[in-house]
């Protein structure tokens, strides 16, 4: 009697009620995390385009050439460099100023006709170190009246929004991961008690804990993929549709979201990550539970 015999699942997990619960919950969690992550990536993309994602905050100090002798400028730079929280002080050269003006007006102005100001760029790691009024007051003593242009408030607001969005994204992803892990632990514990008799028999005929755990972990992996892949695909379809819609509206402040290949791969990897997490959670649960048995 030569017949191919497929090796059966020794712990009959496939017929458990969890075989529909796990795909549902992991599907929902992957769906959510794909949307959350894509929103965050989109936000970063917008910020990148405005070049406002750097960690540095800047201000520009303008003083009139009349009361800015070379010594006075050097002294100001020294004073500024010693202020707390200032990371960089840079005297903007005349050529740089002219190039900037050229970029705006299209022609190079005659420096003799247009009196160029003296400009000093200051960078700091936090916006608190860049109080315009404080800097004005300090420089009053060295060079007399100056004007301080601190980065506009709206830019700071966008900056901190990007930061907040990233923080919220991270928090949401952590919560989603926690819910998934807790669900898997719960499902696995339930399955362990449903199949307690089977597990006892398997132990008796010589199965190791790791062998029994491998049955649970494989099942968890398969079920998580069964839910995670559709959840991910659905979310990506929604993202693409939303991209099309916002493209139609052409909202000028929100440049159309376009993800790089890397970012798409990042999003597409979510069900795989979720499945691996589900697999590890199931394995660890089984090994620890069995290890507590007499």
């Amino acid at each position, binding site marked *: *009697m*030569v*017949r191919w*015999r497929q*090796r*059966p699942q*020794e712990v*009959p997990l496939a*017929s458990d009620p969890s075989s529909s619960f796990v795909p549902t919950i992991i599907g929902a969690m992957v769906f959510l995390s794909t949307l959350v992550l894509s929103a965050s990536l989109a936000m970063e993309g917008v910020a990148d385009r405005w070049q406002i994602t750097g960690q540095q905050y800047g201000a520009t100090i303008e003083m009139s050439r009349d009361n800015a002798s070379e010594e006075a400028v050097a002294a100001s730079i020294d004073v500024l460099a010693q202020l707390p929280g200032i990371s960089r002080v840079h005297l903007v050269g005349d050529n740089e100023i002219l190039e900037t003006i050229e970029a705006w007006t299209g022609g190079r102005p005659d420096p003799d006709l247009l009196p160029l100001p003296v400009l000093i760029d200051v960078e700091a790691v936090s916006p608190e170190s860049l109080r315009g009024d404080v800097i004005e007051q300090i420089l009053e003593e060295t060079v007399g009246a100056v004007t301080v242009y601190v980065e506009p408030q709206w830019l700071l607001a966008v900056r901190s929004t990007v930061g907040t969005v990233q923080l919220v994204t991270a928090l949401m992803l952590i919560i989603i991961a926690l819910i998934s892990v807790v669900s898997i632990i719960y499902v696995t514990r339930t399955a362990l008690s449903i199949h307690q008799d*089977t597990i*006892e*028999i*398997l*132990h*008796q*005929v*010589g*199965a*190791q*804990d790791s*062998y029994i755990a491998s049955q649970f972990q494989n099942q968890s992996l398969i079920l998580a993929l069964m839910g995670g892949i559709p959840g991910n695909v659905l979310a990506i379809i929604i993202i693409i549709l939303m991209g099309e819609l916002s493209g139609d509206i052409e909202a000028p402040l929100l440049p159309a979201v376009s993800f790089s290949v890397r970012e798409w791969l990042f999003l597409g990897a979510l069900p795989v990550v979720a499945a691996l997490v589900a697999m590890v959670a199931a394995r660890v649960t089984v090994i620890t539970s069995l*290890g507590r048995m*007499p």
Partner: protein
Amino acid sequence: MIRFENVGLRYGSGPEVLHDIDLTLESGSGHYLVGPTGAGKTSMLSLLYLGRRPTRGLLTMFGQDVATATRSALTGFRRRIGVVFQDYNLLDHLSAFDNVALPLRLVGTDPGMVRDHVYQLLEWVGLDTMADVKPPFMSGGEKQRVAVARAVIGQPDVLLADEPTGNLDEPMADRLMMLFMELNRHGTTLVIATHNTRLPQRFPHPVLHLKEGFLKAGRPW
């Protein structure tokens, strides 16, 4: 060699069901374990198949105190022990074939060899035509024979059988006993718990007599 020294067993916080068991079973020996119902035969076998650990005293198997053996060491020991349970303990979702194949598959035996061995044994116990049937669709005697096949397929060092012929007619009972005797001749340590007084007469081996949890000298009959 298996050694009981002053062993006692209780289930949870219940009364002690085995008391002061002192016993040495030499490797390759064969014994019957007899006694009235409720005397503690199954309990004693459960100590031997490492399903439970003694609540007091010392039990040494394969040269190690089972109370201090690690989980993985116990797994290794269980692979050297074949058990025919009184209530069979078959896996209901697996076919007769897969139930019998279990001990071999767990140690990674080549699938072709598994198939040959399993069919050989199923044929010996008269179940070769029922390879694909699952236990819920079998008679008591059929299940018992699957349980016997599963217990012996790994050629265990120790074979424990709890009332292995209870559901069988005489010819089939003798056939299985011949299988056990054959293994015993090849060095397997054998302990058979039974109510059947005919077996020790037909296949003679020393008798261990349990009564109310105590090991008694001599035969009850």
